[in-house]
């Protein structure tokens, strides 16, 4: 099946263009836009790990190594589309327009971090595995019923493909031909379990065959491959062509979360030998003459400042309101819950 589902790439590891049919589309503007998002989420990600190490943030799920997959996919979406992330997809949601302060707040245990920005349709990150896939299918189904051209995307990892909800979501997506993109980031590991122990299939993309669904396996560390593949899948969905499964083969450089040590289950030296998706894009830009040191440096500085400012705002955020413990459980609090709240607050002099 690796032959039937070859890994599609536009760039090779060194950033040379392999798919020359796309050369004209790989403009400086696009390169810079993608680089900017990738650098921004990496800056966020590294800062979040540091904050966690200093006890200033809760347990955090790093995404370094997956920037191309997350940015390339989210950058292909439009404002009215729906995004259903997991806990490792804040790179995608930030690219889509999620607020950075709220993203930090989420990792600091604040429910405010789950509330999407303004009118953007960003679902709170799914913590159970694969459960968000049927949600995305349902939201896309709703768009189809309303006759719009908006689409939904579900993010999920390789481990999720072992869950029933992945298969149930795939089946509903194809039976009802909903405008959804099932975006898999195959980063090689479900916490400590390698993909070879996760499944007997050679690829994840082939699983779509069983559902009569188009699918493609791509290099998830080649941001152009991700972006142009997504554009095609999004266009198919918008024009009534139904769902697509995309397997973006990528690599998580670090730990599953800040609570585990990946050197226990794999050789981290080898892990770091992998080509960095940002370096690959930079190599491409250098080769094309798109890489202006000063411009890049300015982007880096801007992101440093943005992240530092977001941390400041997050840390200065008003303390949690105990009313929020109760008030959003139901549209109107049942009497008994209201009594529990009143008793608790009264006993504490509120």
């Amino acid at each position, binding site marked *: 099946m690796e032959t039937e589902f070859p890994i599609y790439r536009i760039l090779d590891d060194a950033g040379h263009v392999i798919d020359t049919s796309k050369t004209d589309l790989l403009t400086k503007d696009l390169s810079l836009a993608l680089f900017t998002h990738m650098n921004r989420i990496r800056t966020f990600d590294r800062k979040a790990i540091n904050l966690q190490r200093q006890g200033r943030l809760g347990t955090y799920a790093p995404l370094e190594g997956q920037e191309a997959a997350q940015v390339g996919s989210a950058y292909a979406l439009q404002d009215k589309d729906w995004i259903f992330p997991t806990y490792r997809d804040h790179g995608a949601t930030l690219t889509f327009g999620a607020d950075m302060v709220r993203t930090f707040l989420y990792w600091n245990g604040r429910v405010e971090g789950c509330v999407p920005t303004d009118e953007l349709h960003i679902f709170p990150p799914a913590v159970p595995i694969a459960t968000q896939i049927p949600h995305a299918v349902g939201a896309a189904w709703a*768009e189809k019923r309303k006759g719009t051209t908006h689409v939904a995307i579900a993010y999920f990892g390789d481990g999720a493909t072992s869950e029933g909800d992945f298969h149930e979501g795939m089946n509903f997506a194809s039976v009802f031909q909903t405008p959804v993109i099932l975006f898999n980031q195959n980063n090689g590991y479900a916490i400590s379990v390698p993909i070879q122990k996760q499944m007997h299939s050679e690829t994840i993309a082939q699983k779509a065959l069983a559902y009569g669904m188009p699918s493609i396996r791509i290099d998830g560390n080649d941001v152009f491959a991700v972006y142009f593949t997504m554009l095609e899948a999004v266009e198919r969905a918008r024009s009534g062509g139904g769902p697509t499964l995309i397997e973006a083969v990528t690599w998580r450089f670090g730990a599953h979360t800040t609570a585990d040590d990946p050197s226990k289950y794999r050789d981290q030296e080898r892990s770091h030998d992998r080509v960095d998706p940002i370096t690959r894009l930079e190599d491409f830009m250098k080769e094309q003459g798109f890489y202006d040191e000063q411009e890049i440096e300015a982007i880096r500085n801007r992101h440093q400042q943005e992240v530092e400012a977001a941390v400041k705002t997050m840390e200065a955020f008003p303390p949690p309101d105990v009313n929020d413990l109760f008030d959003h459980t139901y549209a109107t609090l049942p009497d008994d819950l209201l009594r529990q709240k009143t008793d608790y607050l009264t006993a504490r002099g509120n």
Partner: protein
Amino acid sequence: MATPINRQTEMTLVQAVTDALRTKLTDDETTLVLGEDVGKNGGVFRATDGLQEEFGEDRIIDTPLSEAGIVGTSIGLAVNGFKPIVEIQFLGFIYPAYEQIMTHVSRIRMRTMGRYGVPMVIRAPYGAGIRAPEIHSDSTEALFTSMPGLKVVCPATPYDAKGLLIAAIEDPDPVLFLESMRSYRAFKEPVPSESYTIKIGKAKYVTEGQDVTLIAWGAMVQVAQKAATEAATRGISCEVIDLRTLYPLDRSTIAASVQKTGRAVIIHEAQATGGLGNDLIALINDTSFLYLRAPIARVTGFDVPVPLFALEDHYIPTPTRVLEAIQRTVDF
């Protein structure tokens, strides 16, 4: 409460369910019915009979056999403008969807601070007593009454079924709507043709009495009534309360009744351990402890899985067992 009654029809509980669905499908174009065999077949209990002909395949949707898929995709529909009314064929088959209900349906309002709600109704036939095959007879309501964010409703009569189902569909929050299979066609009563709602969270006095409060829901209401009739011949006056909503509980009605009678017998089909009866005992303890003249009694299923049907009559509470509990309570 009920609007003025102009026309009414004698209906069974299952017919009242269909009538409520038809009412809301007509009223509200965002309502959808989804489930296994709900379309052409009209549902295994015919609760959706004729609805696909009337409202089309686009709104009465035969889904794949996939409970988590049905509930999971309905979440997406619900947060994006629709009101899915999901039929799970039997409560005993809901467990694949339990994760979706537990981790998403019930929590999305809380997790998004109200930005997204899940106005979804999950209908599920439940309970033993109709000689159904294995696993078809579960009464696991307590798995859901202990789930914050969800409401659980269980009508005992056709009139209540229609009013409560309409209220459930109109509720901005998710509601699990339990339909007693044994009550589906047990009796008919007049049901208004108009749309009306019964407030979720309100119990009902079925019979007023002085000596013992009997608390039941679903099929057990009739069992309690039979026991009450029998007890009356012994000079014991029972007050029968039909809970109607299992979460949130109607604290004031239960407390008022127990404070009057000083005795309570709780009847449910579910196992004793972890059953809703225990929450009712806690509620009575919290509100009415000093009014009690006897320990609160429970008549429940046993701490065993619901048996294959050859033994189900031993499992389900009977009027005789309820009567024994009433007598013990009075004799205390």
